[in-house]
């Protein structure tokens, strides 16, 4: 079919159309006029180089650009991978962040580090492991129990009307300050104990002052902190006071607090990874 000079057989009647004029015969008059009118209209259009885009297109484009920038700026969640709320605002997550739940952490530390000797209920084993529940040694000034946990306790002594001669290892190496504060807060406020919560700062301070000290004997511990010594922060209502924030921050809906700082960075809960 592709000979030297094949011609289009579609419109055999048509003479070789050499342009609009030659084809005028094929058009009805008004169609022709329409075409011409068309041609004249188009003459109006600017025809050199880039024809100027009409004003309304420019305005549309500007408005769109403006809106887009605004929209992305306001709804992109700061480009954080873990923000799923378009209305997120910088800093909005700090407000919902509760205090670290010492009781919760403390319970976990107690289960891992203390329970096997002192027992799940903190009753200990009379004569072998001193009790923690109802013990006057764990309440009162926080520094007493903190020293024990940091440096350990060994040697013979009488605790709560029982003689003990075992030794408690120093947990200062294995436990972080926060965990010590937490576990002691837990001990001082569980099983009916009414001690004040322990502040992480105190532990840090005491750890510094103790340095690498060998374990206390009951005697020197009492000489440092007599059982009569009052609790600097009154324990009255301490459980309630310390208990409520713990309870609330444990409730669902609020992100986990500083505990996440113990988790590897990419998996931190707070939207802003430290």
């Amino acid at each position, binding site marked *: 079919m592709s000979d030297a000079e*094949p011609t*289009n057989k579609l419109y055999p009647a048509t003479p070789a159309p050499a342009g609009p004029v030659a084809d005028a015969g094929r058009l009805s008059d008004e169609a022709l006029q*329409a075409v011409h009118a068309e041609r004249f209209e188009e003459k109006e259009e600017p025809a050199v180089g880039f024809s100027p885009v009409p004003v309304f*297109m420019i305005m*549309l484009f500007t408005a769109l650009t403006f809106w887009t920038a605004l929209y992305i700026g306001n709804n992109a*969640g700061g480009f954080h991978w873990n923000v799923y709320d378009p209305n*997120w605002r910088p800093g909005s997550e700090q407000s919902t962040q509760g205090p670290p739940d010492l009781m919760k952490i403390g319970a976990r530390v107690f289960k891992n580090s203390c329970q096997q000797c002192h027992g799940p209920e903190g009753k200990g084993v009379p004569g072998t492991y001193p009790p923690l529940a109802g013990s006057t040694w764990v309440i009162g000034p926080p520094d007493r129990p903190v020293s024990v946990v940091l440096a350990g306790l060994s040697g013979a002594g009488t605790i709560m009307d029982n003689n003990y001669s075992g030794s408690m290892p120093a947990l200062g190496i294995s436990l972080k300050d926060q965990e010590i504060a937490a576990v002691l807060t837990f001990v001082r406020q569980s099983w009916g104990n009414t001690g004040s919560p322990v502040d992480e700062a105190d532990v840090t301070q005491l750890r510094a002052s103790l340095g690498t000290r060998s374990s206390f004997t009951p005697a020197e511990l009492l000489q440092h902190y007599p059982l009569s010594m009052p609790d600097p922060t009154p324990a009255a209502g301490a459980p309630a006071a310390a208990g409520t924030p713990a309870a609330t921050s444990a409730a669902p809906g609020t992100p986990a607090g500083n505990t996440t700082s113990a988790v590897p960075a990419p998996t931190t809960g707070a939207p802003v990874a430290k």
Partner: protein
Amino acid sequence: MIPFASLLASVDPRPDPRLSERARLSQIDASMRGPAVLFVVTALAWLAAATVLGLIASIKLHAPYFLSGTEFLTYGRLAPACANLLVYGWGCNVAFAVGLWIMARLCETQVKHLGMLYVAGGVWNFGVFWGVAAIVLGGSTSVEWLEMPAGVGPVLGSSYLLIALWVILCFQYRQAGPVYVSQWYLLAAFCWFPWIYFVGEMMTLWAPARGTVQALADGWFVQNALGLWFTPVGLAAIYYCLPKVLGRPIRHYYLAPLGFLVLALFSPWTGARNLIYGPVPVWIQTVSIAASVVLVVTMVVTAINFHLTAWAGRRDVWESPTLRFVVFGAVAFTLSAVIGVVTALRSVNVVTHFTQFAVGQGVNGLYAFFTMAMFGVIYFMLPRLLEREWPSRLLIQWHFWGTGAGVVLMLAALYIGGWNQGMLMNDATVPFIAVVRQLVPVNELRTLALASMAVGLVAFCLHVVLMLVGALISASRAVLVKNGILREGSVG
């Protein structure tokens, strides 16, 4: 160096410059005759298959016991099979035919090494058959629009490169002079698709990304397959046929490149717009929403170009089978673009997401716009390739009214029913089963619409067959006449 030079010479698609222009033009059409017919016929075969599967699937949605005995005809297999046939079987094949032809004509270059094209086409269609068979037999990957087994990817990819190569070559060797906007759209589309497909296959099937990054890659693939493959090809076809058939240049043509630029730059960023409120960081959703809204520029530009041009020659539009379909497609594109922008907004997306409304958007883009435009081009292309008129007015009328009515009915049903579905689904006091009940009439209407579209398609396929048979007869008669066996002009 010599073999290389000879290779270059052999691929140089420029027709013999000694021929007159009109001779060169018909030589170009002659060179495209074989490939275009091959791709159009296979595409129509796949479209027919897709329509059958879609019809069965649609019936199952309101009559779940229909053909429920066999495992291979469950809705969960027919639906993806239908979608893949529509995308890779019909869409890509017809895009090859139309894209190659329009590009060759606008560049005034001809396609060579037809054998290569035939092989590539065969391999492509083998891949499609393999993939769809695998889906029906239970091998679906359940990755949207990539349900075909991973093994199909290389098959489709390699054959695609052989086919798309000619679009690039034609453009490379194009005649001097201004480049028409259709050429931009086609060149870009044929360059984009392999990358889109490669990324989609790699990040979901071959080396799956971890977690929802995978879903993101799939969403990006689906959005771009629509926005950077089917849409540009469809727009190129409209930009070509509308002025060509009317004999009038596009109105406000100087805007067209702007529309192309905006589509090229922003459409790919809409990748996550089907994951709005989904399990991906909010910034990704927001960026995609913004990009979807910016696409309003392309919508406005194409609307100005198409509708003003068509309106100026409205009488001729109605008188031309090509333009009836092409203009239908143009209007559908504007509609789908508007709806695409609106449903990208979170407040609207909350309702339409997960509902039949989203299905309607797919139908709007893939059938009401792309497929109708392709029908129009075929009405324009085949007579010029086969050098004969369409034999029957009636069949064209049946095709237009059957398909058109079906598409309109389906869009109405899916858009209205889908919106209603979304409103009910977002109201926790409405039990879910009530939402399902509300959808029954919608799905019945969809079946009706599909049946109507099927009627139109049957008319069209019949018409194409008549056309090809006629061409064969006349070709053989020409041979007979040449050999003096048959007298000139005698009716066989």
